[in-house]
């Protein structure tokens, strides 16, 4: 089922939580709502579930108006960050809950419910734990029970609120992959909230980047990562270095560097900021050309897949973060305190007044 969200506005006691949010989720996709805390992503998810209501705007499920349907009527599956399992019911009873509260006409027989619950428990690999109570399960197991419970009612849409937020790193990674696999099997339209960009990039078909109640960009993981629409998206999806400069004769002048600004149309003298990812910073011991910045190595962290450098610019004393491959790191053989020449690649230039 597709979801369309049109011009949604929501305020809490004067706080503008969502501002004119528009979003379309095509049927069968797995979409991530990504943003820092307070960006309105959970509020948007709860509005889609019918747990919260917007002051303005429309929600369409499969093209049908669903704005005023309550949570009970929306037929969505919702997975809460802290699982919200029924603590007085065991795993089996938790998963069966949604089937048992259906109106008598639609309700399955006891045997059918039992079969269905066991099938779901097999799907989430918890069949042998059917008699356990939530308190006797680990965090990862609880989250899988919550997922089975949400899927039991055969929802048209699956909504997950920070589904892995309360789990430790390793379990999180496993569940992430497992969720992706599950989605590929059952193909239910799914929307999950996360503040973890890595999680969004790894799991989602499409990412909706949100900030301060607004949608900043919608796109595939490659699109939002490689073609960020604005500095916020660029900044939020991974580390980034900032270089300040000004527009001069249709090019951005940043220290001794010049970056062409085709079709930018900014007046001369406009302040601009260039953004460069740490792995797009090239480091050399000797000057290679004129377009370089002089810096001193402050700290080197050699552990891990890449070597991380903290460099200090000689002209402005600003810190530059750089990532080098292990081979390049060994080849250069740098120590802290040494002078180097820095050459940024793939600079993305935005006008200064854009607020981050």
């Amino acid at each position, binding site marked *: 089922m597709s979801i369309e969200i049109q011009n949604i506005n929501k305020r809490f006691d004067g706080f503008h939580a969502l501002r004119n949010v528009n979003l379309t989720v095509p049927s069968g996709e797995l979409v991530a709502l990504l943003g820092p805390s307070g960006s309105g992503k959970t509020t948007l998810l709860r509005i889609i*579930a*019918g*747990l919260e209501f917007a002051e303005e705007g429309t929600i369409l499920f499969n093209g049908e108006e669903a704005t005023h349907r*309550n*949570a*009970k009527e*929306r*037929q*969505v*599956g*919702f997975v*809460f960050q*802290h699982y*919200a*399992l*029924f*603590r*007085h019911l065991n795993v089996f009873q938790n998963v069966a*809950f*949604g089937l048992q*509260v*259906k109106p008598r006409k639609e309700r399955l027989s006891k045997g059918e419910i039992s079969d269905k619950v066991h099938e779901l428990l097999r799907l989430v690999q918890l069949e042998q734990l059917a008699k356990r*109570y*939530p*308190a*006797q399960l680990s965090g990862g197991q609880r989250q899988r029970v919550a997922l089975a*419970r*949400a899927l*039991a*009612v055969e929802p048209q849409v699956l909504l997950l609120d920070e589904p892995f937020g309360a789990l430790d790193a390793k379990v999180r990674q496993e569940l992430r992959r497992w969720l992706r696999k599950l989605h590929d099997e059952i193909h239910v339209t799914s929307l999950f909230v996360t503040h973890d960009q890595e999680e969004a990039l790894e799991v989602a078909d499409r990412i909706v980047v949100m900030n301060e109640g607004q949608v900043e960009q919608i796109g595939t993981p490659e699109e939002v990562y490689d073609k960020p629409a604005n500095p916020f998206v660029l900044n939020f999806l991974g580390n980034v270095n900032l270089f300040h400069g000004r527009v001069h004769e249709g090019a951005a002048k940043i220290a001794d560097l010049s970056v062409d600004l085709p079709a930018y149309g900014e007046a001369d003298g406009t302040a601009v900021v260039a953004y460069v990812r740490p792995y797009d910073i090239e480091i050399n011991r000797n000057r290679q050309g004129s377009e370089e910045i002089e810096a001193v190595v402050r700290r080197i962290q050699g552990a891990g897949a890449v070597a991380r450098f903290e460099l200090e610019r000689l002209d402005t004393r600003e810190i530059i973060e750089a990532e080098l491959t292990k081979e390049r790191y060994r080849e250069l053989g740098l120590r802290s305190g040494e002078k180097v020449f820095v050459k940024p690649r793939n600079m993305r230039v935005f006008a200064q007044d854009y607020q981050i």
Partner: protein
Amino acid sequence: MHLPGGATRKAKKITAATRLTEPAPVRWILTGTAFLFLGLFLFIPLAAVFSQALEKGVGAYFAAITEPDALAAIKLTLIAAGISVPLNLVFGLAAAWAIAKFDFRGKSLLITLIDLPFSVSPVISGLIFVLLFGLQGWTGEWLSAHSFRIIFAVPGIVLATVFVTFPFVARELIPLMQSQGREEEEAALVLGAGGFRTFFMVTLPNIKWGLLYGVILCNARAMGEFGAVSVVSGHIRGLTNTLPLHVEILYNEYNFTAAFATASLLAFLAILTLVVKSLAEWKVREQISAE
């Protein structure tokens, strides 16, 4: 060969154990003080009640608690508790449910008002009803013209009891329900359960022991309430005397055996309450440790 090794191991064990607790004299003093206090203010008075009650033999004891006035007092106490406890159960549940699960204007005012009977002297509570419904009160003339009697009658006693006991259930449930949050209810709602179903299948099972605990405390207070009831009762023997008031009357008449015999009934009730309360607490703990 074995002895020295064993001895050091034992010595180590003792130091490890003692490091985690206070030295023995401190422990003895603390436990001793607690027991001394309990003995002085609880066990000795309790023993005194029963010994005084049985001073003139079992026959006099039973005669004192089965005479018509005593039976009338027991009946009235049961009526007052029987009306006020269910009312406060419903009110407490509704108030706690509203406060813990919803946001609305005037929520903190409601919480403050629920505590009012705790912060006001029971005598004042009784006086409020006299001012409202007494002959010289605001509605007194109208009530007497229509021959309704509230003050110095059973309705007044019930009203005073309801007022004094209404915080118990709500106070017990509010923190419990607040700590449990709204997520389970929201989950039930999304799964297609309506309001009633959610309440009976999710909310109520989660609070049942806390609710029982609140009801027990509420009942104990309803049966034992003296101050507020004393003001509105008028002390009419056989008509408007509850058990605590009956005890006072007998005592003032120097009828000590009968006074203590009746008091022992209230003491029994207190002991029974304690037992049920411990059971409820034990159940609550069991529920928590299972989590």
